[in-house]
C-alpha cells in the first residue's frame, strides 16, 4: 500500500503530509519548552535577593557547545540542499558532520553533568561551609578539593566572589551537618537547569538517532525514491534546527545572565 502525499503536496494544505506533521509537532514543542521557560522565570523572579546563582556553569564549554550546534545546523541544511541538486556524496559528508557535532554536544554536556554531580557543598556543625569537588569519601571522612566560605551568599554570585585557588580539605563525618552535591536537588536553579538541559539533551539524542539512521541504512531510499528521501532529510532537519533554536535561548539564560 502506498502512503499518500509523501512527495506530492496535498491540495488542501499545500504541503506533503510529513511537513504539516512536523510543524504541528514543533508547535507542541514550543509550548512544552515555553512552559519550562515560564517555570524558569517564576523561579528566578521569586528567588530571594542575592540567592539566584550567577557564574555556576562553565561558559567556555557552553560557548563551544553553542558553536557546535550552530555548525550542525548549517551542515544539516547544506545536506538537504545537496540532495536537492542530486549530490549524494556531499549529503553524506554534511550529514556525517552533523552526526559528529551531535555526539560532541552530548559528550560535552555529559562532562558538565559529571562535574556538577561530583561538586559538593558541605555545611559543618560549626556553621562553616566548604565547597569543592569530591576527592574521597570513606565511612569516617570526606575529602574535597575546594575552599571554605563564611557566608552561603559567597557561593551564589561567582562573578563577585571568585574562587581563588583550591586546597585539599578533609572533614570528619561527625563534623558534617549537611552534604549535598550540585545535582537537581541542590536548589531550584540546579533543578530547572537539569530539567531544561536534560530535556534538550534528550531531543539532541533523539535527533541524532534519526539523523544516524538516515545517514546510514535509511539512505538506501535515495536510490529507490530520491524525492521522498530528500523530504525525510528536510523533516529531520526542521527538528534539528528547532533543537538548535531552543539552545540559542538556554545558553544565555542559564550560563550567562
Amino acid at each position: 500500500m502506498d502512503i499518500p502525499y509523501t512527495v506530492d503536496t496535498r491540495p488542501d494544505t499545500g504541503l506533503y503530509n510529513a511537513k504539516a506533521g512536523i510543524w504541528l509537532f514543533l508547535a507542541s514543542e514550543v509550548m512544552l519548552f515555553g512552559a519550562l521557560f515560564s517555570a524558569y522565570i517564576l523561579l528566578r523572579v521569586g528567588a530571594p535577593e542575592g540567592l539566584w546563582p550567577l557564574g555556576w556553569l562553565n561558559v567556555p564549554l557552553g560557548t563551544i557547545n553553542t558553536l557546535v550546534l550552530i555548525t550542525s545546523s548549517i551542515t544539516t541544511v547544506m545536506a538537504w540542499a545537496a540532495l536537492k541538486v542530486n549530490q549524494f556524496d556531499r549529503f553524506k559528508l554534511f550529514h556525517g558532520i552533523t552526526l559528529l557535532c551531535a555526539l560532541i554536544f552530548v559528550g560535552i554536556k555529559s562532562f558538565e553533568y559529571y562535574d556538577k554531580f561530583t561538586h559538593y557543598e558541605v555545611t559543618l556543625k560549626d556553621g562553616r561551609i566548604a565547597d569543592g569537588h569530591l576527592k574521597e569519601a570513606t565511612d569516617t571522612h570526606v575529602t574535597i578539593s575546594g575552599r571554605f566560605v563564611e557566608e552561603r551568599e559567597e557561593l551564589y554570585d561567582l562573578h563577585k566572589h571568585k574562587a581563588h585557588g583550591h586546597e585539599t580539605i578533609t572533614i570528619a563525618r561527625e563534623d558534617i551537618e549537611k552534604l549535598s552535591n550540585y545535582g537537581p536537588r541542590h536548589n531550584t536553579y540546579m533543578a530547572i537547569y537539569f530539567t531544561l538541559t536534560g530535556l534538550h539533551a534528550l531531543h539532541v539524542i533523539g535527533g541524532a538517532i534519526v539523523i544516524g539512521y538516515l545517514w546510514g541504512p535509511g539512505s538506501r531510499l535515495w536510490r529507490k525514491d530520491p524525492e521522498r528521501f530528500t523530504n525525510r532529510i528536510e523533516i529531520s532537519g526542521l527538528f534539528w534546527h528547532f533543537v538548535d533554536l531552543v539552545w540559542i535561548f538556554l545558553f544565555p539564560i542559564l550560563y550567562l545572565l
Partner: protein
Amino acid sequence: MSEKHHDEHFGHHVRRYLLVFYALLLGTAITVAVSYVPFTNHALNIGLGLVIAGTKAFLVAGYFMHLISERKMIYAILAFTVFFFVGLMFLTVWSFYDFPPLTITR
C-alpha cells in the same frame, strides 16, 4: 538540469547559508561579550542577551527552516503557537503583580 546549473544552484544556497552561519557565530560572540559588560542594572544585560538570542532565533527559523518563504498553512499553525506562547508569557508576567488583598510588599 545540467551539471553546471547544479553547481551554480548549490553555490547560491551555500553562500546564503554561510552568511547566516557567520551571523550566528558573531551573535554568539556578542552574547558572551555583552554578559560581561558591567551595566549598572543587570536587567540591561538580560534584555540585550535576549534581544540577541531573538535575532539568532529569527535567522535560524527564517533561513535554515525556510520560514521566510513558506506555505500559508505553516504560518497558520505558527500563528496559533505564537498566540498561546505569548499568552503563557503574559500570564507568567501578570502573576508577579497579582497580589492577594492586604498584601504588603517591600
